[in-house]
């Protein structure tokens, strides 16, 4: 069947380009740059990665729509957009790794990151649960390695191990759920699964399978009560890895989660609240509510900014899960917008944390004191990122929340059934302002400690943070710029 491989290759060309780029980087680094300084090696890796990502992006742009092999790979404008976003964000993450000293092995790091990106690209493009699982494993394994990449740090190793153990277990759950679905429907194609499931009603096996799927993905997106890995990983992993885990992988995971639930199990969604009917929507809603509460309330007590960002990530996961609970076209558009802008913001926040950590060696609130004097650019960037996370207009985070919550309210048709979830979300947003302001208070109001010296931030990092901050502002003030590309049919 030779001619069948052509469409597959054509469809998978962007991923192939990225993989090739990764191998090229590894080759260049191993063969040519072992003697060069760390920074140079990372810069070269990042440059090649950017070029590769751009090339892949071009290929994406010219690529056609459609699906291959009955759904092993699909391509729609939305999927292309998400893949492009993944590429762009990965490239930015690699650039932010240039100034962070945590390893000498630039090539391997870039390889792992790009392989994770490839996995994510497959993850969002597939409509077959088995392929999805394989892609997810590719992503996860790469991320476990990335989490433990700093060989000199015990915390990094601990983070990697915890991530691996947690991840392995929830991957197991996910696979078990998928196998149950296969057992029920005798197919791994999501569309075929949907038809098979439609006539099943409240089959106990189906319910078990759904719960497993929710658990599996819930871990990936760091939703409570499956989030316990997040604080430790965010805290222990080297910053560029944490940035990738916190930003890019979330985008891919949410989109994949949405696709699995709506493509494979649409009939079993159930109405959340109205009839109390069983369905994944109820389960996701419960997880969302728990995430919002847990994440925001525990974040108040944090003294480490990394852990604070981790718990806030749990809260944001809760908000984004609402987009899945609503499962309308509009909510998907809102979810993608939110996830992408959240990723941009998180990358920026982690870049600033990296800069501070480099100077003071720690990431507690006290290390941020007087940042506005020590480095105005970093401080201004942090203000933009944290206020966007809090949902202050005219930043991207505000519009994301507004659009997402409105989309949730608009489902089901005009009857405001999910109003309580939205009320909870808005209330927790208000709570979140408190702890974000605590950080900003340290940054702007408190004078720097006498022992804190002058902070020199490399130009590249300053440029990066400025660009990301400007992007957050621009995407918030003119959301249409991004929304135009998020086309949901």
């Amino acid at each position, binding site marked *: 069947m030779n001619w069948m491989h052509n469409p597959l290759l054509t469809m998978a060309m962007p991923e192939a380009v990225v993989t090739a780029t990764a191998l090229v980087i590894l080759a260049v680094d191993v063969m040519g740059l072992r003697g060069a300084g760390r920074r140079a090696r990372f810069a070269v890796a990042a440059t090649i990665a950017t070029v590769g990502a751009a090339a892949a992006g071009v290929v994406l742009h010219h690529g056609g729509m459609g699906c291959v092999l009955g759904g092993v790979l699909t391509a729609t404008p939305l999927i292309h957009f998400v893949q492009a976003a993944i590429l762009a964000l990965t490239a930015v993450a690699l650039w932010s790794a240039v100034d962070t000293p945590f390893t000498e092995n630039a090539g391997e790091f870039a390889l792992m990151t790009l392989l994770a990106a490839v996995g994510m690209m497959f993850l969002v493009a597939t409509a077959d649960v088995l392929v999805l699982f394989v892609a997810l494993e590719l992503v996860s394994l790469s991320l476990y390695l990335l989490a433990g990449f700093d060989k000199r740090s015990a915390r990094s190793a601990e983070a990697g191990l915890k991530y691996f153990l947690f991840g392995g277990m929830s991957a197991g759950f996910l696979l078990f759920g998928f196998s149950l679905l296969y057992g029920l429907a005798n197919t791994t194609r999501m569309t075929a699964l949907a038809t098979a499931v439609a006539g099943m009603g409240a089959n106990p096996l189906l319910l078990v399978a759904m719960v497993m799927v929710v658990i599996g993905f819930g871990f990936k997106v760091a939703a409570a009560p499956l989030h316990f890995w997040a604080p430790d990983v965010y805290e222990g992993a080297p910053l560029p890895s944490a940035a990738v885990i916190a930003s890019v992988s979330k985008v891919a995971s949410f989109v994949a989660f949405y696709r699995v639930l709506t493509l494979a199990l649409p009939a079993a969604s159930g109405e959340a609240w109205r009839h109390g009917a069983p369905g994944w929507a109820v389960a996701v809603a419960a997880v969302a509510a728990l995430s919002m509460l847990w994440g925001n309330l525990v974040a108040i007590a944090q003294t480490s900014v990394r852990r604070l960002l981790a718990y806030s990530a749990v809260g944001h996961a809760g908000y984004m899960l609402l987009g899945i609970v609503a499962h309308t076209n509009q909510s998907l558009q809102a979810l993608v917008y939110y996830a992408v802008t959240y990723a941009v913001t998180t990358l920026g926040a982690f870049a600033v944390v990296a800069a501070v950590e480099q100077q003071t060696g720690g990431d507690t609130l006290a290390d941020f004191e007087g940042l506005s004097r020590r480095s105005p650019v970093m401080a201004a960037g942090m203000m933009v990122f944290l206020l966007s996370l809090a949902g202050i207009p005219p930043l991207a985070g505000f519009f994301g929340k*507004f659009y997402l919550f409105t989309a949730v309210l608009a489902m089901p048709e005009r009857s405001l059934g999910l109003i309580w979830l939205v009320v909870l979300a808005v209330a927790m*947003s208000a709570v979140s302002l*408190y702890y974000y302001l605590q950080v900003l208070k340290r940054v*702007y*109001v408190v004078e720097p400690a006498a022992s804190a010296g002058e902070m020199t931030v490399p130009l590249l990092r300053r440029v990066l943070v400025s660009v990301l901050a400007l992007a957050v502002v621009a995407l918030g003030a003119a959301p*249409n710029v991004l*929304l135009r590309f998020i086309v949901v049919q």
Partner: protein
Amino acid sequence: MLAGTIYISMLGALVLALMPRSARNAARWVALLTAAAGLAMALASFAAHRDGALFTITRVPWVPQMGIEYYLAADGISLCLAVLTGIVAVAGILFSWDVELRTNQFFAFYLLLIGAVYGVFLSRDVFLLFVFYEIVIIPKYFLIALWGSTRKTYGAMKLAIYSFVGSAMVLVGLMAAWVRSGGHGTSLEALAAGGYPHHFQMVAFPLVFVGFAILAGLWPLHTWAPTGHVAAPTAASMLLAGVVMKLGAYGCLRVAMTLFPEGMGPWGHTVLGMASWRDVLAVLAVVGIVYGAMVAMVQRDFKFVIGYSSVSHMGFILLGLMTLNQVGMSGAVLQMFSHGLLAGLMFAVVGRMVYARTHTRDLTELNRMDLHRLLPFAAFAFVVAGMGSMGMPGFSGFVAELMIVIGAWRAFPVLAMITGVGVVVGVAYIWRAMQRAFFIEPGVEAQAPHEPLGAITLPEKLGTLLLAGTSVVVGLYPQVLLNLIVPALNAPIFEPLRRGVWQ
């Protein structure tokens, strides 16, 4: 042109943020010129649109997916409040001429706040109004936390969280309204024509109104106000009490009452003698008037007196809004203008003229200094501000409060009488504060302050003249504002309100 007020303020803020810390004098002048330019633009528009009718400034699509437009328009009410913002902004800068710490950042936050306030008053799209409304919160926080005094971090955080919670309530209401109206658009006209069912309005109205009214100091959600105002530096207090609290009241009128008028209708049953949300809010407003006045009477800290006085005066505005007749509501808008000026002047006297020099706000200590000899201009300014604030005829407060009481009499006669009590207590606490702060008790030995008090500077005198002069002009010729306010209240968009008890 009027939108220039927003843009020039934001531009000024940006310029100031980029200036070096040491360029203090340049920072002051940039700020003053920017604010003056904003005021000039507002006045020019005021003069050009004397009939109070609505005119569009800008209208471009913003997020077509949701029908959100960048839609700026102004009617008589918006114009009056824009002029108020301009006046208080200029006065605030004049009174902050002596800020030494991070001067450029101070004025940057200040101008950002002013720009956002202009934005709220000029927005005709409710989403846009909300965006500007939220933007106000952050500069407020930093102005207080960085340059404030008593318990500044606590006061700042309390203020920010309260405001944000209020905004959250409004956000939920806004989103629900957008969904319910079919998602056509978020302009005021589109949302007002949403055709919301009765039970929806019965829930949405109190939610959105109270959300806005938190910022307006509705009792019992007012506790952030005295703490926040006392903690804030003078210019911030002037802005907060003078203009930002009016944002809340404006939101109540422009959004809550316009979008959900049926929410003020009778429930069908009575609870404790109240039969509708309108009754409940009117009662709360009057409680605020009397409570604020009575608590102000017993304060030992001069600034707290003024802080509680703000709560009391805002109660008048909320009561005026609830009267739902032309006299009462016009009075409410006029009171927004009047109190903005007078509260600004009082905080200026207390904060800048007295506290910055004597470093004490304790009335007993101030009394011993016999300040009317050392700072005669400050005493004069406070007497003028106090007379206006207590409703002395000839000042703007008298006309406004008179109109509100007349309106209240028609709608809630019993509450009108209680309000009269509040007015009398108002006279009492102002007079008490003035006496204790500036005029030594006969027979008590005068104690000179620890260091000689600086003379009142020219910027302070100019600021006083600006605020007091405007109050007198409006007090003697309120028609200058009423000519805009009354036609604006008679506009078609308030038609559902008028179908009520309009007179």
